[in-house]
C-alpha cells in the first residue's frame, strides 16, 4: 500500500490551519502545520518530506509566502506549492509566476476546487517521480 501524500499547511491564522487540516486529512493526506514562515522553513529541512506545501501569502511579512515558495523550489524533489491569499494583486501574482508556484488561490477558498486541484497536482507529480525512478 502506498504511503499517504504528505502536506505542509502554513498560515498564521489558527482557525484556517485547523479547518484545512481537517478537510484535507479527510481526503487522505498526512498533514503537518506551521504558524509562520520560520516554522515552515524548519519543517522543510528534510528533503522529500512533503509532497505539497500550501501557504498563505501574507503572514509575519507581506508576500512572505513567495519566499517560502522560493525555498521549496530549491528542494529536490520539489514539492507542489499552492499559495492562497486575500490580498491578491497583479504585483504578487506576477512574482508568483516567476517562482514558480503551481496554484494561486484567492480567498475565500473554494474547498472543493482546492481538493480537486491538489489531488491532480500531487498525483501527477508523484506519478512522474515514480516513472523517473
Amino acid at each position, binding site marked *: 500500500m502506498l504511503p499517504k501524500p504528505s502536506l505542509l499547511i502554513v498560515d498564521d491564522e489558527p482557525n484556517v490551519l485547523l479547518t484545512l487540516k481537517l478537510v484535507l486529512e479527510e481526503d487522505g493526506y498526512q498533514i503537518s502545520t506551521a504558524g509562520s514562515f520560520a516554522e515552515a522553513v524548519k519543517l522543510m529541512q528534510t528533503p522529500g518530506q512533503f509532497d505539497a506545501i500550501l501557504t498563505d501569502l501574507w503572514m509575519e511579512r507581506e508576500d512572505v509566502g513567495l519566499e517560502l515558495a522560493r525555498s521549496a523550489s530549491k528542494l529536490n524533489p520539489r514539492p507542489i506549492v499552492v499559495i492562497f491569499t486575500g490580498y*491578491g*494583486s497583479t504585483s504578487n*501574482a506576477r512574482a508568483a*509566476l516567476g517562482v514558480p508556484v503551481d496554484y494561486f488561490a484567492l480567498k475565500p477558498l473554494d474547498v472543493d476546487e482546492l481538493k480537486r486541484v491538489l489531488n491532480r497536482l500531487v498525483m501527477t507529480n508523484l506519478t512522474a517521480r515514480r516513472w523517473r525512478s
Partner: protein
Amino acid sequence: MTGWRGGKFALVVHPELSVLSQYQSLLSKHGFTTVVARDLPTALLAITQHYFDIAIVASQLGEAGDGWPLAGVLHLVFPGSYIGVLVAGADLLTLQSAINHGVQDVFEITQSPQSVVKASVAAAKLAESKKSGEPLQ
C-alpha cells in the same frame, strides 16, 4: 537543448496568419523548427506529433476555442517546456490563470513579437540549463 531528438521545436498558436508568420520567422532565426496553428484542433494534433521546447499561445483563439486550456494541456504533456501566453491585459485574474495552467510568462499583445521571442528563448534556455546543469550558451 537539442539532445537526442536532433532539433528544437516551437509551437505558435494564434488566429492571425500574419502573426504566425512573424513568430515562425523569428523562432527559425533562433534555430527552432516552428509549427504553427490557428485553432485548437490543429494545435492538439501538433502536440501528438512533436516534442515542443517552446510554446507561444494566444489566450483568445476566437470562435475556435480558448488558449488557456491549451496551455494547461501543453504543461501536462511537456512539463519541462516553456509556455508563454499572449494576453489582452495582464490583470490579476489573467495572471492567476497563467499560474494555474502552468504557464511561465504572459505577454501583452501590444508587445513586439521580437521581444516575446527573445524573452521566451532566454527563459527556455535558462530552464534547460537548470535541468541539465550545463552552462548557458
